[in-house]
């Protein structure tokens, strides 16, 4: 089943170990502190045992959630990347203003 792993770990060293463990299990890092991918029941339990040990007595919170395909189809993604039209528009304005300023000064 598709599995979502999200975590909140203040300590860098532990967080990196969790990051590496998720990669070892073939999950895809799709957001900060969030992984997603296919895991069988057994592999999911194995990963949870490994993460439990990694965290040990340290502060942190790890959430492993299997998601069925039916629910996965209902997902909603809202993405705005830096290369968006609005941002380009502003950039163009800034560049033109700079050129006008240079022309006046020249």
């Amino acid at each position: 089943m598709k599995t979502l792993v999200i975590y909140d770990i203040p300590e860098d060293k532990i967080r990196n170990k969790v990051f590496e463990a998720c990669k070892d299990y073939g999950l895809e890092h799709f957001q900060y502190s969030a992984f997603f991918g296919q895991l069988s029941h057994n592999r999911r339990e194995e990963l949870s045992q490994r993460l439990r040990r990694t965290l040990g007595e340290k502060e942190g919170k790890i959430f492993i959630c299997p998601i069925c395909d039916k629910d996965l189809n209902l997902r909603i993604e809202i993405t705005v990347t830096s290369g968006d039209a609005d941002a380009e528009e502003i950039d163009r304005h800034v560049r033109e203003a700079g050129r006008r300023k240079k022309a006046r000064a020249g």
Partner: protein
Amino acid sequence: MTLKVGDIKQYLYCPRIIYYTYVAPVDRKVTPKMVYGKEEHIEFERLERRRTLRAYRLAEGERRFRTPLESPRLGLRGVLDMHVVTSLGCLPVEVKYTASRPGLNHKYQLVAYAMLLEDAYGKPVRHGYLYLIPSKNVYVVEITPNARAFVRRMLLQIADLIRRETFPPATRRAGRCVDCEYRRFCGDVV
């Protein structure tokens, strides 16, 4: 030959594991879960020494850990995780590190340990426990005459398999093959 209690558990999971252990021995891949399980057992022992026997609904008793048991009569040996000796008799406790429920193979492994205890102490064993880490759930298993007969039958079947060197059919539950550590040796499973 003397069989191990673990063999009963493995045989019930899939008869081919016995084949790969005795008839055509192959390298067994040790999965991370096995390693973690071993470590958790050590931790369980440390904690269990400090606990009362409330989880087993007992008022008094003496715990004994990792007891090697052997019965020439049954042709069986094994190391029992823990057993509690009370004035009324012994109670075997088998520890499992899993998030899921214990399977039938675990139940009959415990029954086999109970039979070994009966031979060692000369007293009947009526109940046993399966202790699950990390949930700390304790499952009570009744040791019935039928269960004992079943274990004896399984022991005969295992001995037969080893003697005849037949390659047994795989378990009918295909899901078990998915993450099986012997999967690379079975050419006919999914």
